[in-house]
């Protein structure tokens, strides 16, 4: 059973790593950020599978931290993108 979980972990990791090609191609920053978001979620899934497959409960805490950091990265991207557009924070549709 742990073989299956470890294989699934590697499979998910390889699959989301292939998705990183989108970072290379673009065409816009939004697409690149989406690939990073997918990589974050895939990394969480791979870590959870790894912790169950290899019997390393600490990996769940790493997954929890990664979930937090992925959210922060995306929010930081949105903030910087709207600032670069000259989109001043005037309280409109927020």
């Amino acid at each position, binding site marked *: *059973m742990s073989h*299956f*979980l470890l294989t*699934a972990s590697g*499979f*998910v990791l390889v*699959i*989301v790593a*292939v*998705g990183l*090609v*989108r970072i290379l191609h673009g065409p*816009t920053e*939004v*697409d690149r*950020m*989406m*690939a990073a*978001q*997918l990589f974050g*979620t*895939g990394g*969480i*899934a791979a870590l*959870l*599978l790894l912790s*169950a497959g290899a019997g390393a*409960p600490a990996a*769940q805490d790493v*997954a*929890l931290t990664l*979930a*937090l950091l*992925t*959210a922060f990265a*995306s*929010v930081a991207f*949105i903030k910087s*993108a*709207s600032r670069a*557009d000259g*989109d001043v924070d005037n309280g409109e549709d927020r």
Partner: protein
Amino acid sequence: MNFLLDLFTIVAVSAGAFFFLAGTVGLLRFPDALARLHALTKADNLGLGLVVIGLLPRAGGLLVALKLIGIWLLVLLSSATVSQLIGRAARRGKLRK
């Protein structure tokens, strides 16, 4: 009983991995940013959700199971918020062109 739980884990984790595959294929193949966002949210919500559900029978205790569900709920919350914000950024970028 043990066999059934193992089978449940295998089915759910495989389905979750399939959704990650679908999300990656969608991210690479779909024509514009909003369609790609649609593919991405499937991988985020369903893929991780099925993986977590599949791992629940193998969690050692109630606390570990609750932690797994907590991770999933956190990702659901952040992914829903971020998808909304990314969708708005993509739409504004398109309108400005």
